[in-house]
């Protein structure tokens, strides 16, 4: 599922998407995947997304592309396997060394458990 999510973000933003950290200074999307629960039928996870851009306006535009590619109004999501997707929390900061703006948000997702 996370691979499909990453591919969707890549396709929507046309940017590199990295796990954990960006290897160089560039406009990109970085994520951390945190499994939260799994009862054998339903699993939930949090994907912490960090958009790295050179201005806040650019970062907001990238965030908008990500959400438009993933979220659906009402039940479900635009990803086939994700039965529920919500955004919670977030923030932004300016990184002075690299002169980049970082925009954070969390995707709370519900999927069917992979347990067979």
């Amino acid at each position, binding site marked *: 599922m996370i691979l499909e999510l990453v591919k969707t973000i890549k396709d929507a933003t046309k940017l590199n998407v990295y796990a954990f950290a960006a290897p160089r200074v560039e406009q990109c999307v970085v994520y951390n995947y945190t499994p939260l629960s799994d009862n054998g*039928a*339903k699993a939930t996870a949090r994907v912490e997304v960090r958009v790295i851009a050179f201005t806040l306006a650019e970062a907001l535009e990238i965030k908008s592309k990500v959400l438009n590619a993933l979220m*659906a*109004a*009402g*039940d*479900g999501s635009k990803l*086939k*396997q994700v*039965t*529920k997707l919500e955004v919670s929390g977030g923030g932004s900061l300016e990184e002075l060394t690299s002169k980049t703006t970082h925009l954070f948000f969390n995707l709370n997702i*519900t999927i*069917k*458990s992979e347990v*067979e």
Partner: protein
Amino acid sequence: MAKGNIVLGSGDLYITQFEGAIPTHDTLEVEANRIGSIKGGASLSVSPEVYEVIDDKGMCLKRFITSQEITFKSGILTWDLETLKTLTLGGTYSATADLATLKIGASGAIAQYLVRFVHTLDTGKKIRVTIVGTASNGFELSFNPDEETVIDAEFKAMAHDIEGNQVVIEQELA
């Protein structure tokens, strides 16, 4: 491996006026009949009323179904007046290029609607729930600054064939 599937997730809701017979899947499950987005999933409730023949010793000898109440509920997130019309009893809807109007309150015939909910399993196979019914609980239209408007739709099923069947649940196997 356990028999059957774990079902998780919502689906698509289609509503159209009932014309006397349930059309084919391809005819019914089209964009024009699809309610845009639903929220909170959907539920089908089957409540049979049973009459028991009990003798003087308190033993149950036979049970009969005297009636069955079948209701379908869902929350409608994206709607227009044409959608609301399906939830009214005897409402009249009219539209011009510039204006849509729904009038509610006058008495009149109650339209029957064909309501179909389609859940797609992760195998790609579909479970379809189909009823013919009428809106049974009206609706509440709220305009709330804190929450999106979700209209609770409730349809009570009625017999749609000579056998008296009220609901059809189909699961694709192949």
